[in-house]
């Protein structure tokens, strides 16, 4: 082994330049590696869109756009249309949203304005745990516990009260649109309420105290200050919940009962875009059947993309307005 030679001037600068070359390559390499990973995320979206469109191309060529407003879905005659399923998706998600939106806002208000700090943490964590429940477990509960309750208690009760409207009449089932709406509500609420709480916490303290200083009650303060201040964000929170409801396949498949037709009554069995795919993709016999299910997936993809992008745009505008 050579004895260590003390570095002379030129050696040191050579070493430094070698090191800086190393560093430059390292910087470029890490930058390229991480940028490549980011491109992978973009590529994943592109692949999903491409594969769904490719899978649906046969059906698109065969049925074209009218697929979206034709009602018949008949594997025996190999004729497919999506209208029933679009209706099922819209009505279950829409009604679930009507239940979930006020609930989420109220929970957000409770967690941000009302609850004492100890309760706040515990209830907040519990609501988040509700979001973590796997949908298949909610579906299992929906079919074996909620279903019989809906059939034996809830539907007769609603029928006796509201049977004069077209929405609450007809035969009682363990499955159907009503349990699907309840299950979806359970899935939307934790998502939307967690976002609402975060939003309400961003309202500046001075504004709230100013409102109290004017002699307003707590509710008047919320209506006059908190809700106007966070309006855009609350809409986005609810849209994000809607995105989840539209695409929920498993729990809905378990409870909705896979039926044809458009029924006004919430007691009827139905089907949604996502649940039809989940229920029939394995058993699809013809190429056209598989392709039509991919077409359903494409429609669902467009719906959820629109909803999610709208939510994002609203959030961005909200953040800009706040100068963040």
């Amino acid at each position, binding site marked *: 082994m050579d004895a260590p030679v003390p570095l002379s001037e030129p050696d040191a600068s050579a070493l430094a330049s070698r090191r800086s070359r190393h560093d430059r390559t*390292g910087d470029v390499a*890490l*930058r390229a*590696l*991480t*940028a490549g*990973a*980011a491109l992978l*995320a*973009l590529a*994943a*979206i592109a692949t*999903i869109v*491409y*594969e*769904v469109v490719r899978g649906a191309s046969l059906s698109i060529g065969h049925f074209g756009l009218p697929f979206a407003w034709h009602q018949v879905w008949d594997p025996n005659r190999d004729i497919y249309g999506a209208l029933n399923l679009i209706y099922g998706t819209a009505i279950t998600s829409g009604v679930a949203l009507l239940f979930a939106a*006020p*609930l989420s806002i*109220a*929970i957000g*208000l*409770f967690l941000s304005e*009302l609850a004492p700090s100890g309760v706040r943490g515990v209830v907040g*964590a519990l*609501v*988040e*745990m*509700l979001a*973590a*429940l*796997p*949908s*298949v477990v909610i579906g*299992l*509960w929906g079919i*074996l516990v909620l279903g019989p309750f809906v059939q034996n208690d809830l539907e007769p009760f609603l029928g006796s009260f509201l049977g004069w409207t077209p929405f609450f009449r007809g035969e009682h089932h363990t499955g159907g649109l009503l349990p699907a709406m309840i299950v979806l509500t359970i899935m939307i*609420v934790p998502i939307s309420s967690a976002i609402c709480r975060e939003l309400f916490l961003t309202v500046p303290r001075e504004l709230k105290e100013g*409102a109290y200083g004017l002699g307003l*009650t*707590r509710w*008047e303060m919320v*209506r*006059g200050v908190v809700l106007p201040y966070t309006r855009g964000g609350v809409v986005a929170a609810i849209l*994000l919940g809607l995105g989840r409801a*539209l*695409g929920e*396949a*498993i729990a809905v498949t*378990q409870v909705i009962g896979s039926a044809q037709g458009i029924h006004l009554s919430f007691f009827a069995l139905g089907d949604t875009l*996502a649940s039809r795919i*989940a229920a029939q*993709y*394995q058993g699809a016999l013809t190429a056209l059947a598989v392709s039509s299910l991919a077409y359903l*997936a494409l429609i669902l*993809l467009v719906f*959820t*993309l629109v*909803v*999610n*992008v709208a939510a994002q745009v609203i959030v961005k505008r909200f953040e800009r307005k706040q100068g963040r």
Partner: protein
Amino acid sequence: VSRLVATGSVRRRKRKSRLVEILAVLSSARAVGALALVVLSVLVKALPALNLDLFTKTEATFGESGGGIAHAFVGSLLLVGLAAAMALPVGVLIAIYVSEFAGPRAAMVVRSALDVLNGIPSIVIGIAVFSLLVLAIIMLPLISRATQEVLALVPQSLREASQALGVSKWRTVLRVVLPTTLGGIVTGATLGIARAAGETAPILFTSTLFTNTVSTDPHHPVASVPFIIFTYSESPDPNLHEKAWAAAFVLIVFVLVTSLAARFVLHRAARMLRAG
């Protein structure tokens, strides 16, 4: 502005405010009640089938009692483990790109892409790509976002100090910044695993022909816990219903414990970063 002018009887206004407060409390109680209802009914129904056999034996032949779902546990572990191994490095690298290298515009594009990815229904992803990749794609935004959140908390002065000492950027990122974000990475990975473990839709299309024996060969379709719950719940055999409840209970406990642990770790990591 007119909303901010108080008019009317004070007593009535106070009563109205009180009413809304009560409604808010009731709403929260309802959400917590729903959680308790689901968890408790799963627990009650699962009790008869919760025994060691559940974890050590495979499916009983139709109509017979006993047996277990060991094959599903092994399958789930395998699927989720492999998917996490794929998603974890990519997710962390994306987070590093967004917070250390990208300009504001590129960062926004990548962040939006992750949000879009997070919003695509898993059943649609399941139609597009094979199941392992679906789980990885589902985990990716969760891992990346949690890592980004913690990276954003790393004080700028730490990076500047390192660079002032002549340390190059890539060494700074890998040796100084990244180690401080370990908490965020662990959180993201745990949240991702909890989510992927409960995902049924993507597996639906690929594990139809799974065997009822323990299999660790990833080339063969494997059973998984959520898939077992889904198929057993639609079966007429009460023994299988019982197994579905037991599997649901194990899944719930796993998911809730991992999500709670993840939040705890993130909370601690964030607090340490803020304090340090």
